[in-house]
């Protein structure tokens, strides 16, 4: 008991320290921000932006155009002066960076924590308990550990490709967040009041599929460049699997597009304004197809052949360590979130509440409520993934291939036809 007591006391002290440090950091940042803002005269611009409707990209654009643009630029550099024309792509990039650091990293970190806790529970274990209360700081600690680890590149590996490969996997994974509708977009008189979408692309769905298909190159390159036969086999398997399952995945989303008549993810989400309008009803086979193909695209149990540890040890990333390994790891979990979010948006109403608008509280789906519904649904899907991970064994490569080519693709094509006919018949 005495031993347990001291341990608890130590854990609490650690936790207090963390809170204190976060508090200090917040205060310092606030002070620095306010002082710098006052000194540089940016504050009026901040106020103007706030009045214009507080969106992230809006802030950056506003600051660049109205504040930096108003500086006294020398004539020789005048052509570089920020103006509404070229600032948009820059703000998109900045918004992306901010999204990654503010959202993706913590999200993935705690997704891993949740996985360990949930699977631990299912496997009669306790999961992380030691770092922070309930082990909450375990995964941040792991991330830090990975970041500080030695970066090993095997002899005879192709150094350049070996180094680029993790980026080829992580960057697409992080770019996908841009088009996910986390919530609604409030537009008043053609002016965006606030937007909970990074970039409201008209071809959002196509963008996602293009982005995710590029990641395969990173996986193949990683497998090849490691100069390890296990990695090579893992890379090959990944490539074969990802190429195979991209087709049924695309076929699975087509019915939703057909039904709504748009490739814009937010439009699709807006269409499903209550439970009766959810696309899962007309496109139910599509949801099943989507779930199976998405599992395979993720390399998730029971399709985790590329990294089947009992056969290939770890697959394409077997030679990776430290930061680079962390990048693959981040990408994997981030993709799990994105595909869950995509499934929710396409079939399960996106950020919309299942109740009609008239129901108080439960029917509200604007602002924070929309984000709440979105995360509730998406995280339920992520939980479903964890559950599968604790339950299912792994398929064999030929079984996987025949499932993809002989069952999912024909069923997907039939489903597209069916939904098209239904759409025409029902108008």
């Amino acid at each position: 008991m005495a031993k347990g007591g001291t341990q608890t006391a130590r854990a609490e002290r650690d936790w207090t320290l963390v809170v204190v440090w976060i508090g200090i950091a917040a205060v310092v940042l606030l002070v620095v921000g306010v002082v710098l803002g006052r000194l540089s005269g940016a504050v009026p611009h901040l106020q103007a932006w706030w009045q214009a409707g507080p969106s992230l990209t809006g802030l950056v654009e506003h600051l660049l155009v109205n504040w930096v643009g108003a500086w006294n630029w020398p004539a020789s550099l005048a052509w570089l002066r920020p103006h509404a024309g070229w600032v948009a792509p820059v703000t998109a990039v900045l918004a992306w960076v901010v999204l990654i650091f503010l959202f993706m990293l913590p999200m993935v970190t705690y997704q891993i924590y949740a996985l360990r806790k949930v699977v631990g529970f299912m496997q009669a274990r306790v999961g992380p308990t030691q770092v922070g209360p309930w082990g909450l700081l375990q995964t941040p600690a792991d991330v830090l550990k990975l970041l500080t680890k030695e970066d090993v590149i095997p002899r005879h590996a192709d150094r350049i490709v070996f180094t680029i490969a993790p980026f080829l996997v992580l960057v697409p994974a992080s770019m996908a967040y841009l088009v996910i509708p986390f919530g609604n977009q409030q537009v008043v008189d053609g002016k965006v009041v606030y937007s909970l979408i990074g970039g409201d692309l008209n071809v959002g769905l196509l963008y996602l599929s293009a982005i995710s298909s590029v990641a395969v190159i990173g996986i193949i390159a990683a497998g090849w460049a490691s100069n390890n036969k296990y990695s090579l086999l893992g890379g090959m398997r990944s490539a074969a699997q990802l190429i195979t399952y991209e087709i049924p995945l695309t076929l699975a989303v087509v019915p939703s597009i057909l039904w709504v008549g748009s490739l814009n993810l937010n439009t699709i989400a807006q269409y499903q304004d209550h439970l009766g309008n959810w696309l899962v009803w007309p496109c139910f086979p599509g949801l099943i197809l989507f779930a199976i193909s998405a599992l395979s695209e993720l390399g998730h149990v029971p399709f985790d052949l590329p990294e089947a540890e009992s056969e290939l040890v770890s697959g394409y990333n077997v030679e990776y360590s430290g930061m680079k390994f962390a990048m693959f790891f981040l990408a994997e979990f981030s993709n799990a979130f994105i595909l869950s979010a995509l499934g929710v948006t396409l079939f399960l109403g996106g950020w919309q509440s299942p109740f009609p608008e008239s129901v108080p509280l439960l029917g509200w789906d604007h602002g924070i409520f929309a984000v709440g519904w979105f995360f509730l649904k998406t995280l339920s899907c992520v939980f479903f993934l964890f559950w599968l991970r604790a339950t299912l064994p792994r398929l064999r490569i030929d079984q996987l291939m025949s499932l993809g080519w002989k069952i999912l693709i024909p069923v997907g094509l039939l489903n597209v036809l069916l939904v098209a006919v239904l759409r025409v018949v029902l108008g």
Partner: protein
Amino acid sequence: MTTGFAICFLVLAAVALAAAAKMIFSHHPVHSALYLVLNLCASALIYVLLGAPFIAIVQVAVYAGAIMVLFLFIIMYLNLGLAQDVADARSRRATALATAGLLAVLLLAGGVVRWSGDLAGRPQQVAAGQQALAAGQAGLPGAPAATPDAQAALQAARAAAQPQPGQAVTVEQIGVALFSRYALPFEVASLLILVAMIGALVIARPQLQRESALRKEVSS
């Protein structure tokens, strides 16, 4: 508008050209393939600049995401190493250089004739030139031929975009163009792909049969 556009375009064009050059002169087929991916992505961004996000995304999805993945897959499967390539490359280099040079001259000539001045006003031609350039590079030995449907899509995009230069081409416009004015070329292109697929099957079939027979022998 013009300055920002020009800066972005020049940077992207430089990246695309450099990647294309590296792709040709790389010693290893895997490196070449990765440079080609870079080239394709850079040209996709140029399409975005030109207000054709749909084409850009299709370019990435089809070329970088599908065709190049298959290429890398095959390169790795066949273990195309550096050693055997060097011997081959000498004989091929002259042909490759000649072809590339000829293409470059043709494209430049075409470009000079058609651009004649306003770069920003007629962005579609830039896209066409870039696409043709990429396709030209792709036509070299060891690289993919441009898929006809993507070219058709490009033409359609051009056609659809022509009424209002500078504005984004919507998916609807492309769809309408593809299924009305360009329906025949589109279908012909898909027929071509079908023919190619069947041809590949016909060539590979006896091989497969012999292999499975051999496998049976081994197992019995």
